């Protein structure tokens, strides 16, 4: 017998909002700023807030039995898998371009004359790699501190490591924004710029999403929504954070390191 909660309106509203965001942003690029874009952006944001609020409330109503939690976890894993193939498509495009560089680029990668504006992989990107890997260590420590926490004692160390994880994520984002601002390259800098910025840009967006997810779940932890055996929200946020870290490792190795001049 499956414990399925009742019908919800949010999937429909969320998909309408996502459709409006994409189509209104295309309208923006062709015809100038579109207010519909702002409206649809808040529709999607609102969907996220209300949908997950509903899940939290169902939890307080007692729906989140141990077996039901495994369904929530499966849902989160499927979402992360969809993100994997999302990044896979941009990596496909990048590999298509960099493993068979076109005549216009000088038959080499990075394109001819781009050597000195390519970001040195062992400067800021190496630091970013160390930052994300360290945040993976701190989020694991946090998880185990949660597993041994009781309601009113032993929660402080988990909270400390949690805060350190979010702080490291924010430092990563700050460094990436600084790199973007200082770089002479931009989106229209030949196909190198296109591939580089679509990959690193979407990765930065996903780090932002992961940091927001960790912060929201942190708030729920501090307001005593979790127990030491029932914390699916934290596990989901932590898995998403590890996924973001793995994508960065692929980016660092294939785009920054192997994509740089020898």
């Amino acid at each position, binding site marked *: 017998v499956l414990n399925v909660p009742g019908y919800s309106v949010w999937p429909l509203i969320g998909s309408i909002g996502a459709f409006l965001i994409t189509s209104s942003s295309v309208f923006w*690029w062709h015809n100038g700023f579109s207010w519909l874009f702002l409206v649809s952006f808040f529709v999607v944001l609102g969907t996220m807030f209300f949908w997950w609020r509903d899940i939290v409330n169902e939890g307080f109503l007692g729906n989140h039995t*141990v077996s039901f939690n495994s369904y929530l976890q499966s849902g989160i894993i499927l979402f992360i898998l969809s993100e994997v193939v999302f990044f896979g498509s941009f990596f496909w495009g990048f590999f298509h371009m960099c493993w068979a560089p076109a005549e216009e680029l000088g038959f080499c990668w990075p394109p001819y004359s781009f050597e000195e504006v390519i970001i*040195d992989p*062992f400067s800021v990107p190496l630091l970013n790699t160390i930052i994300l*890997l360290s945040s993976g260590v701190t989020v694991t*420590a946090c998880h185990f501190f949660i597993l*041994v926490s009781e309601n009113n004692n032993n929660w402080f160390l988990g909270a400390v490591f949690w805060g350190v994880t979010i702080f490291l994520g924010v430092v990563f984002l700050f460094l990436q924004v600084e790199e973007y*601002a200082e770089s002479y390259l*931009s989106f*229209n800098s030949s196909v190198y710029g296109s591939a580089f910025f679509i990959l690193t840009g979407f990765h930065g967006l996903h780090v932002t999403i992961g940091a927001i997810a960790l912060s929201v779940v942190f708030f729920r932890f501090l307001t005593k929504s979790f127990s030491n055996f029932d914390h699916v929200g934290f596990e989901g946020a932590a898995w998403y954070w590890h996924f973001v870290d793995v994508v960065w490792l692929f980016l660092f190795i294939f785009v920054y390191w192997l994509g740089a001049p020898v």
Partner: protein
Amino acid sequence: ALMMQSLKLLTAARLVRSAAAQQARLSHHYIRTEAEVKNYENTAKMWSALTFVAALPCLIFGLYNMETREHEFHESHPDGPALPNWEWNKITKPFPWGDGKQPLFEYLFQKHPQVYPPPESDE
């Protein structure tokens, strides 16, 4: 008839055993032995020790390495890096912000005006 009865008993026993096994699997989450709790505590201590013994030194090294490389680069390139072939940087369609002539992070931060002239200039 005897076979049917024994079959029914066997299937009933199997169902009871699997239900019990599932119950044990599920309640394992919140019914913990001393050994399991000790294991969790030791793992927590290990990962927190790793952050100070492994992650923190690597972070310090990464920061020092970055500062050194950036310093060396700026010392050896006082006029900035050799700019690439800007034939490949043409803007054939205006960007949807500002006057359309600057990429987004140039528009936001204005760091390289000699490469991307700001809006109110002639060239």
